[in-house]
């Protein structure tokens, strides 16, 4: 352990952090309707920041000033929103047509219970019973259009325009955590801890963004407003570390649970700044923190919008790996969460404008 890490207080995951993640995971914040998570974020960060504002799209922008002159201005972003659905038509007797919000598969909704609206009223997305299917229908692909949400045969509190999220209560199971929307409540939880613990050398611009799942729209305006020198994006990326169908070697795992924070090099939206990637890798090595390089290709984070803002923002993304994102629940490892938090906290502590010296 280096001198620097001994002197600073690294955020640790204890009961308080677990309870906060549980609250964040059980809260519903389908893209465009992030109020429930925003409320928790504001409550948590307000006492620790110099300036907090909620912008016109609903982003929470919290700035923590530095004690040094002309500090490096670092935007750290984590999106608050999650995938889900919106009720689009009332067919009577408690039956609603809906459209999905964000990237989901029809199976994520099939036969699932949902939390509808601000009161989390239960509704179910049922399917035609298997007994009544034609033989060809059993294997036939179907679409979200054919599904309906059913809140029970009574008219009441649910209405067109309401959002619904998966009704999955958060649990801890051995080394793992299971809950909905861990993409990206893990990032939100880490960013809250960073706000509470960051060193004063940099100016921390914490951006809790909206509408990431439907086109990185919150991050785009947040980066314009904050006008940072660089950006670090916290997210949760898929781990496809499951057995292949024929139990052959899985060479397309993207990331693996238990292997530490996933550092991005390239995804479908961003070619990450090699200086920042190198800095994160070297920091991890120097401090004995496990890390993995996310397999390049596919996917994306708020970096896709941020790095192209104004004259350009050197950016890097780092994710807690998670299985089954965008489904009723994800499974993640507590250790990956802790290691990601440690790596980002230490990286921010030692970060100076030198990291951007030299040409990209």
């Amino acid at each position, binding site marked *: 352990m280096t001198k620097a890490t001994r002197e600073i207080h690294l955020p640790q995951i204890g009961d308080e952090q677990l309870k906060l993640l549980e609250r964040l995971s059980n809260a519903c914040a389908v893209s465009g309707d992030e109020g429930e998570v925003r409320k928790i974020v504001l409550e948590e960060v307000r006492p620790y920041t110099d300036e907090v504002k909620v912008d016109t799209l609903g982003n929470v922008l919290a700035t923590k000033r530095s004690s040094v002159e002309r500090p490096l201005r670092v935007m750290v972003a984590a999106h608050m929103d999650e995938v889900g659905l919106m009720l689009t038509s009332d*067919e009577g007797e*408690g*039956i609603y047509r809906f459209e999905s919000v964000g990237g989901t*598969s029809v*199976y*994520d909704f*099939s*036969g*699932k*219970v949902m939390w509808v609206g601000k009161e989390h*009223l*239960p*509704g*179910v*997305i*049922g*399917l*035609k*019973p*298997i*007994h*009544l299917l034609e033989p060809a229908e*059993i*294997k*036939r*692909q*179907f679409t979200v259009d*054919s*599904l*309906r949400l*059913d*809140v*029970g*045969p*009574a008219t*009441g509190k649910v209405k067109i325009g309401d959002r619904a999220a*998966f*009704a*999955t209560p958060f*649990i801890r*199971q*051995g*080394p*793992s*955590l*299971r809950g909905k929307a861990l993409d990206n409540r893990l990032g939100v939880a880490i960013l809250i801890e960073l706000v509470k613990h960051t060193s004063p050398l940099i100016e921390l611009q914490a951006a809790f963004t909206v509408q990431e799942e439907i086109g990185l729209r919150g991050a785009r305006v947040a980066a314009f407003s904050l006008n940072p020198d660089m950006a670090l994006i916290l997210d949760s990326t898929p781990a*496809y570390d*499951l*057995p*292949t*169908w024929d*139990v052959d070697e*899985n060479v*397309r795992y993207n990331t693996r649970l*238990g292997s530490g924070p996933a550092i991005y090099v390239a995804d479908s939206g961003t070619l990450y700044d090699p200086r920042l990637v190198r800095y994160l890798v070297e920091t991890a090595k120097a401090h004995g923190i496990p890390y993995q390089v996310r397999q390049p290709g596919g996917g994306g984070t708020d970096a896709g919008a941020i790095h192209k803002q104004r004259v350009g923002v050197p950016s890097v993304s780092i994710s807690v790996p998670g*299985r*089954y994102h965008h*489904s*009723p*629940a994800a499974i993640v490892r507590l250790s990956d969460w802790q290691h990601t938090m440690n790596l980002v906290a230490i990286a921010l502590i030692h970060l100076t404008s030198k990291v951007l010296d030299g040409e990209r």
Partner: protein
Amino acid sequence: MTEILPFLKELISAPGISGYESGVRPLIEKAWEPVTDKMSLSRLGSLHGFQQGTGPEPRPSILVAAHMDAIGLMVNALIDGFLRVTSIGGIDTRVLPGQMVTVHGRQDLPGMIVPTPARLLPFNAQDTVVPLEYLLVDVGLLPDEVATLVRVGDPISFAQPPVETAGGTLVGHTLDDRAAIAALTHCLEMLHSRPHMWDVWAVATVQEEVTYGGGLTSAFQLRPSLAVSIDVTFASSPGSPSHLSFPLGKGITLEWGPNTHPVLYKALKELAERLEIPVCLEPVPTESGTDTYAMQVVAEGIPNVVIGIPLRYMHTPAEMVALKDITRAGRLVAEFISQLDEKFLDKLTWED
């Protein structure tokens, strides 16, 4: 009187896939104990509750069956800490991905059913429903822990918790057929406080979803003069053909077809009309998918009738039932039994 809602929530929260019903059985025993004269278990594990009639010996008897087993899954391989599974009963693979389950290993483990990621499949997952053999269960533990706690052959139950929905409805798994267990319990409680000439056997059957083994063997052992199955039927719901389904919460059904006796059907229908219990005729042209299918052909044959409780989204972990229909089913059977007299059996003739 047992309150239906809390009792039913308790029933569907207890495990008991076909062949492994011992998880739910004690709850039923506890509810039946105060309202029966004796109880026993069949060799296959069905629960028999007996209420003695007041008529002279030899007394006729009626058997009322509701099955207590649930559809579910079973572990058939362990791969790197993940479980491959097979189905027990009629499982709709389309609803499985993302479904929460309990793996009954050396200890109960919360698990989640997940598809093999599309990129690791030999076919385009966009084009088809991913078959069960490509689904896995993730219990969130490390491979070593899983190998210690889980064995091939361990049963797996759905874990969707009961959810109260609007309009007096309940959503959960295994309402097929625990809703009928609740109806049968309601029936026993009504009969406990009123005289009935016939002996009554309430039977919580096992293995209905796979073999009909419970209904078959208990009917043989108890050899009733008449048998009634209470089971769920299709409630009108999005996507279901309207001609094959019945409104939810608006009454119960009486099955009409080769497995049921027309005179019994008529007697129950007329009684329901007198009592103003709404009933619909449910045409079942060939096979009744209930214990009645088995019980009708036990020994020299037993006259049967089936009472249906409309249920939405059958055989998914999020079935929906209306509590009113459960009470109606229990009440109709209780009223029917209490008016059975010595001569009723003579009426069961073919009028052709």
